[in-house]
């Protein structure tokens, strides 16, 4: 029973206004001429220029991208393996511990994850820098990847894999030629999730970063602690724009892929 009553319309309007207005205001004030963020002094793009000349921010951005690409790629490989183990490997010694270690990081407060990894790195004498941030990010994001991928593996027709094996594929070939194409959407969204989690993370990175490597969230956090600044608004606007374009593109692509798949299936059904 669908009713678009005035009540529903109002709650949707107010709800989405609440979700989006703060970001709209943030974007508007990034084009403010005045240094005082709260006083409107005319349109200007000067803060974007300042931002592009700010070496510290550019360096941090570069570190952040490197960490995100490396950690999300390793996490996707490890997380897909872990999902495969959880769904397909059957029983083995220590399976309970394994699935516990996959799910625990999802609910672990970031301060604890960060603290524990820092104490490990100090314990084994590993200097903190890009490498330690990558290790830390890989560890928590592989768990998210494995949850996303395993939900896809669960709803998957196993007879396809068995057919490939019967037709002479090795297990690895059957994985590469049959399983991987089918779970590919989940693997890709797992990678995207890992990538965003890494881009976004402040707490774990603060614990595991050293003086030689600072990520963008750490830089932003230390800047905004002192108060609102138009430069940070400009930086936020750029990040919001990238995410918006990315999400819309991804959803258009996946919609098109579903449509194509449906068409192929219909065509196959007709010829059969």
């Amino acid at each position: 029973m669908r009713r678009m009553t005035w009540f529903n319309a109002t709650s949707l309007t107010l709800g989405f206004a609440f979700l989006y207005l703060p970001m709209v205001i943030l974007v508007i004030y990034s084009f403010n001429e005045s240094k005082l963020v709260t006083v409107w002094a005319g349109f200007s793009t000067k803060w974007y220029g300042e931002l592009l000349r700010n070496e510290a921010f550019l360096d941090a951005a570069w570190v952040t991208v490197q960490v995100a690409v490396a950690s999300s790629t390793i996490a996707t490989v490890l997380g897909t393996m872990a999902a495969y183990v959880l769904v397909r490997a059957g029983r083995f010694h220590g399976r309970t511990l394994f699935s516990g270690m996959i799910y625990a990081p999802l609910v672990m407060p970031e301060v604890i994850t960060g603290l524990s990894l820092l104490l490990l790195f100090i314990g084994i004498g590993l200097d903190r820098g890009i490498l330690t941030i990558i290790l830390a990010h890989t560890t928590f994001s592989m768990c998210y990847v494995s949850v996303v991928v395993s939900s896809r593996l669960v709803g998957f027709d196993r007879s396809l894999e068995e057919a490939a094996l019967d037709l002479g594929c090795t297990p690895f070939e059957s994985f590469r030629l049959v399983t991987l194409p089918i779970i590919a959407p989940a693997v890709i969204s797992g990678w995207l999730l890992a990538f965003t989690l890494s881009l976004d993370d402040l707490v774990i990175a603060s614990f595991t970063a050293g003086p030689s490597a600072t990520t963008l969230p750490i830089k932003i956090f230390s800047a905004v602690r002192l108060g609102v600044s138009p430069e940070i608004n400009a930086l936020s606007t750029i990040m919001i724009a990238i995410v918006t374009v990315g999400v819309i593109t991804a959803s258009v692509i996946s919609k098109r892929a579903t449509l194509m798949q449906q068409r192929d299936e219909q065509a196959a059904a007709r010829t059969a």
Partner: protein
Amino acid sequence: MRRLVLISVPYLWLLALFLIPFLIVLKISLSDTALAIPPYLPTLDLSEGWVGIKAFFAELDFENFRFLTEDDLYWKAYLSSLQIAAISTLLTLLVGYPIAYGMAMAPDQWRPTLMMLVILPFWTSFLIRVYSWMGILSSEGVLNQFLSWIGLIDQPLTILNTNTAVYIGIVYTYLPFMILPIYATLEKLDGSLLEAAEDLGCSRLSAFWLVTIPLSKQGIIAGCFLVFIPVIGEFVIPSLLGGSGTLMIGKVLWEEFFNNRDWPVASAVAVLLLLILIIPIILFQRNEQKQREREG
């Protein structure tokens, strides 16, 4: 053989970078603070063999935990984290439920767009979303300007750096976690049940209370846990929007570690935080399992 490789690679990774680090935290929480590098005692010295291991265990004690119970800062921080988490979960439910309901009642062709609009903020940086409220809530911020412009206030309201700002920040950032599970249950709701209730003389409002709310109970519970559990250990929101009076345990742990450099106490705070979280986490998993059984 291949199976062994497949299992052992992610297994060893998680052992080395999740379980062992946590055991180290546990161990340091039982150690003493020392003016050394690393700043705690004892350190495990395997070169002395069994004697060294025994001496090591003999020196561990619960002194840091005793310290946490004696200093009421920590008590207050734990309690106020629980309180802030509980109140903000309730507020998020009150804000999120009507949105989820509106989405479930919206025409079919709107829904993918509405879903995307709810998910989009989730992909946007958490830090930026929290930061966006700093410019709105400050004393010369957008909200105060607006309120004095419409003539509602003469003096700017102090909202930033209070608990009110923390509540607003939490509701704002965690709202998608509440909306999505509730929407998922409301979407499956069988409309004929509501029609039946109304045919049998229920008013719309009482049909809502007697039919819709109980049938969306699973989504409500899931959403509440998804907000409550992470909020307890929250750090970014209280440190940016909260004031000196905002006590939350994630912030205390951070300060204990970075400002006071007291690693054993920070570790003990972490262990206690985890103990507190275990109960809601187990309850949450039970709820999820019950739901899976009902559906499967």
